[in-house]
């Protein structure tokens, strides 16, 4: 039962985090809050990649104490997630910097109050 549940639970968590993050972005009233929601949404891809590359009973792909050829999890997704971590950090940094600047110039961080860009 738990085995079966675990088989799908991680994917469900990934979907949940993506949806929750998007919800946060759409309803946000503060650019810094919004930046954090973007970071949360991005975590969805961690859960997704990690669970795709996981192998029950597999060792970490580090063959120091275990001989090469031992059943191990997928190392490729780990490399992808490292890139993902960098992307998360850099995007967040740029958004926060832009938000700080917008606050310096307008005194607000609320997207609802910044409606100068109408088509």
């Amino acid at each position, binding site marked *: 039962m738990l085995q*079966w549940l*675990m*088989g*799908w*639970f*991680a*994917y*469900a968590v*990934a*979907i949940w985090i*993506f*949806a929750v993050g*998007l*919800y946060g972005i*759409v*309803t946000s009233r503060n650019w810094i809050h919004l930046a954090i929601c973007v970071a949360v949404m991005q975590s969805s891809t961690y859960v997704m990649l990690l*669970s*795709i*590359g*996981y*192998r*029950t009973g*597999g060792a*970490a*792909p*580090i*063959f*120091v104490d275990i001989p*090469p*050829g031992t059943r*191990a*999890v*997928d*190392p*490729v*997704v*780990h*490399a*992808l997630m*490292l*890139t993902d971590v*960098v*992307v998360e*950090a*850099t*995007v967040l*940094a*740029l958004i926060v*910097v*832009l938000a*700080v*600047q917008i*606050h*310096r*110039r*307008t*005194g607000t961080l609320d997207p*609802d109050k910044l409606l100068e860009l109408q088509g």
Partner: protein
Amino acid sequence: MSPRIRLALFVISLLGFAAIFAAGARELKPVGQYPGPYGDVLNAAAVPERHTTDVVTAINFDYRGFDTLGEEFILFGSVMGVLLLLRQTQDERRKENPEEEAGGGPQASDAMRGFTLALVGPLAVFGLYIVLHGQLTPGGGFQGGLIIATAPLMVYLSGRLEEFKAVTSPHVIEVAEAVGAGGFALAGFLGLLAGRNFLANVLPLGKTGNVFSSGTILLISVLTGIEVAAGIVLAIRAFLEHALEIELKGGKTR
């Protein structure tokens, strides 16, 4: 759109999105049954071929080193972007007496100051260790570089803004950032010079398990460490300068 209409439209379409996502994920293998083949091929090949014991590092800096080149330049580009966005513009000026207002950094108790300052050395050493052992154990240039970057941060957190600025002289850090990032790209040319492909691992591989093993993997890892550490410090410094020393002309935020 009014907030209510927006929310209604969003929630409906979000359900649709989640349904598509779920239907797709339902067709995957259950978690824990990674089918391969990519990861298995590399797990089998990396140790004998690259003389590394950490396969993830071998992938990052060799098999898929080209991804990591892009990744390092994402970081590099973002740091440059942060510097561009936080530069002093025409409607801004340097504060005349920034220290008075800012109090010279965050207020911290004496115990806290001593504690954070004592962390500087160990953090730097630990970071260096992580950088150099990336091919053997978890870690590598990126992780180690991040840890090294926290060392000067501790100087700031201990309330010593001036010392922080002294140890993070932009001239030095900028050059380090450039050497790290540019060096990675140049390391790719080693392969071309040796008559092989871009980013080919052409240095001697050494003995598996030694620190000085794995050829260009170690070289690129060290360069990445320099780039990451320098980039983070550069960005944080720009942030602090902007917050503490630059104000809009007229002195006040609009």
